Every structure is written in structure tokens, then in C-alpha cells.
């Protein structure tokens, strides 16, 4: 034992190197799965405040495009208003559609890493919690994985631990959407039943199975589908409806019924 310590002391440089690498990999191992990321993600207000004061300056450069996007969204919402008011019947409002929306501004985001995160300027104080969904005016964005007092971090669709349950809009078939880390515009649709042939232009929407996102929220549009021979399930490529590179505004959404639905599912599985 004594010899061992003497050896380690004599090779201080190498020993310290090994210790620091082990510490790094242990820290890093918290990001290896979605569940671990959710549990161990610690967001700090310090980096958030530096990012937000910096993005306060750079935001001016994108005001025009941002305005255009908001105009388009306004128009879309306006077109939905008559539809919504006509169909309201106090008896037919289902409680599973109770989602609350918190608007937030992106203070920092990346698209070029294998695991991309988005930081926004709303946190605990504004009612943000882990596992809330994030959407943009264009479609799905990601899931909140870490919250500090004033900021929160979203795991974007562009993350290797991300997997979203979706549906093919035209025929309600369930599929999953992941990202293959190569191109930030394109996602991969997996688990497509073999009898289904997707056409370029088919819409992929959220299934609503996850309790995080409302159903029928746009994920993206199919660009190509190679039918695989032999297997039961095939894969296809889709173009995300959200442009993650120019993202400025997001809405964080909370399913008011999530806790109840969750406990019901747990009760059933017991």
C-alpha cells in the first residue's frame, strides 16, 4: 500500500491526469441518457445572464425576420378564431386540452453539436418546470430539461437522446422521430410500419401520447422514404418544420393534466 502511494506521488503528473479525466467522464456520464440528463442537469443563472445581455445586443439584427414570422403566425391564428368560437360548447371541452403557454426568448442556442441545447429567459420564477414541452410558431422545438431561477435549458430535437412520438397525419399511423446528428435541417422517422409508403410532402405531427406535447403539432415534412426490404419497420427522412438556427421566440407549454394522467398510468402499471 505504502509503495503504491509512493509510486503515485512520484508520478504526480500522470496520477492527476487520470483523476481529472475520471472526474470529467463521471460528470459527462450524466448526459448519456434522457433520464440522467433530466435528473442531473443544473442550470445556472450566471451563464444565463451573460448570454441574455449579449443577445440583447444581437437581437436587433434579426428584428425584421422576427416580425415577419410573427405576422405569419398572427395570420394563422386569426384564421383559426372563427373556427374556435363556432365550435365551443361548454360540455364538449375536454380537460385533456388544458395547456398553458409561457412565451420565452432564446438567449443561447446551437445547432452544430451532436447534442444541442437551447437556453431561454424564463425559469422557475415564471412557472417553468422540467419536462415541459417547447414549441415555436413553426412547430415542435424540444423538452425542458433544466431550470434555474430565471432561465431554463431545452433539449432541442437536435440531440442524440431525443425521441418524439409522432403520427403520420394522413393515416394516423404511430411512428417515432429522432435525429441522426448529421444535418440540423433533417430528422429521421423510425418505426414506420412496413406496409406504409410515405410520399415526399407528407406531414408528421405529434401523437399526443407523451403527455408533454398536445397532439397534431407539426414536427416536419417527409422528404424521402426508402422502402426497406425484409424488415418489419422502415425509416424515412423528414425536414423539421422549425428552423433551429434562426429560433428567437419559443412557447413553453405545460399540460395541466400531466400529473393526473401520469399517476393514472403508474397506478395501472402497478
Amino acid at each position, binding site marked *: 500500500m505504502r509503495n503504491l502511494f509512493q509510486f503515485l506521488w512520484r508520478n*504526480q*503528473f500522470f496520477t*492527476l*491526469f487520470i483523476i*481529472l*479525466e475520471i*472526474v*470529467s*467522464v*463521471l*460528470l*459527462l*456520464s*450524466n*448526459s*448519456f441518457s434522457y433520464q440522467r440528463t433530466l435528473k442531473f*442537469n*443544473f*442550470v*445556472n443563472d*450566471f*451563464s444565463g445572464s*451573460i*448570454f441574455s445581455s*449579449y443577445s440583447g445586443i444581437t437581437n436587433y439584427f434579426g428584428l425584421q425576420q422576427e416580425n415577419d414570422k410573427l405576422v405569419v403566425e398572427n395570420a394563422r391564428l386569426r384564421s383559426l378564431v372563427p373556427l374556435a368560437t363556432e365550435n365551443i360548447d361548454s360540455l364538449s371541452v375536454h380537460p385533456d386540452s388544458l395547456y398553458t403557454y409561457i412565451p420565452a426568448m432564446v438567449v*443561447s*442556442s*446551437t*445547432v*452544430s*453539436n*451532436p*447534442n444541442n*441545447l437551447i*437556453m431561454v429567459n424564463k425559469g422557475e420564477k415564471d412557472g417553468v418546470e422540467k419536462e415541459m414541452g417547447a414549441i415555436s410558431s413553426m412547430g415542435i422545438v424540444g423538452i425542458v430539461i*433544466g431550470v434555474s431561477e430565471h432561465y431554463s*435549458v431545452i433539449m432541442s430535437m437536435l440531440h*442524440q437522446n431525443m425521441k418524439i412520438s409522432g403520427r403520420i397525419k394522413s393515416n394516423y399511423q404511430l411512428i417515432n422521430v429522432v435525429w*441522426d*446528428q*448529421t*444535418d*440540423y*435541417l433533417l430528422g429521421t422517422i423510425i418505426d414506420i410500419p412496413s406496409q406504409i409508403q410515405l410520399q415526399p410532402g407528407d406531414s408528421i405531427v405529434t401523437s399526443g401520447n407523451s403527455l408533454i406535447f398536445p397532439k397534431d403539432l407539426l414536427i416536419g415534412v417527409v422528404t424521402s422514404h426508402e422502402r426497406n426490404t425484409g424488415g418489419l419497420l422502415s425509416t424515412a427522412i423528414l425536414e423539421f418544420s422549425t428552423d433551429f*438556427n434562426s429560433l428567437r421566440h419559443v412557447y413553453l407549454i405545460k399540460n395541466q393534466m400531466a400529473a393526473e394522467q401520469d399517476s393514472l398510468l403508474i397506478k395501472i402499471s402497478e
Partner: protein
Amino acid sequence: MPGLLLRNIFRFVILILLQVLVFNHMNLGGYLNPSIYILFILLLPNNINSSLLLLLGFITGLSVDLFTNTAGLHAGSTVLLAFMRPGIIRLLFGNLEFGPGESPGLNKLGVSGFFRYTLVLVFIHQLALSLLEVFNFHHFLFTLSRAFFSSLLTIFLVMIIVLLTTTRKKH
């Protein structure tokens, strides 16, 4: 000596801020990510205590991790860079004498010498970074090409920064 310390603290702060505010969002080609903050480790004095060098590598990496929410990723790869540094200097410039507090910078190594020094260490750092980031061997060739092109970009940017900020000594 306090001048040397202050200069390094200043360099640390500026490089970390440049990295997290500007270069992390460059997004060239969709997947390239230069890591210019390693210049801080490259330019530390040659006679620095080797354990301190490792610890500074760890702290530098962890500071970048703090901003990118990737605890351990940059720390791990920068510790490797710091670990390789003394060996690479000995390998490339074996017979070169360094004065106390003198760093392996442009003035000491010359443009071509500093370029070779940067080239080797940046490739090691980027390869570690890319592999740690995905932590698997799926898309291995893609990971390699990401490391390769990010390295080229990093070397290019580091050389520009160094050429612009070093005041050349007249001989």
C-alpha cells in the same frame, strides 16, 4: 511576474467569452465548432508547474462547459491537451531553451514552429472532444470528419488571433 499573471487572467477571460458568445454560434457548414479557448493553455509559460497546468486545463474546460451545459466534455478534452503539451513541446522543439516565464508563443517558436505546435495539439483536442461528445462509435467516420474539419477551422482562427495580437520582437 504580476504582469505575467494579469496577462494570463485577461487572456483567460477574453478567450472564454469569445468562445461561448461568438465561436460556439458560428455554425459553419452546419456542424463545425472551433475551440479557440485552448489558446489559453497553448500560451501558458513553459516552466509552469505540470500539475498546475493540468488543473488549469480542467478549469478552462469546465468554464466552457458551464456555458454550454455539457459538464465534463470540454474539461476532459482540455485536460488531455494539457497533459500532452509538455511532451509535444519536447518532441517538436527538444533543444530550445526557455527563459523563466517564457511561453511557447509566436515570438519564441516562429510562425512555422507555432503552427506545427498548434496543429498537433488542436487535432488531439478536437478528436477527444468529438469522441467524448457522442460517446459511441456510430457514425464514426462522420465523427472523425467533424473532428478533422473543426480542427482545421480552429487552427486557422488560432493563427489569425495570434498573428493579430502578438507584437513581434525586432531582432
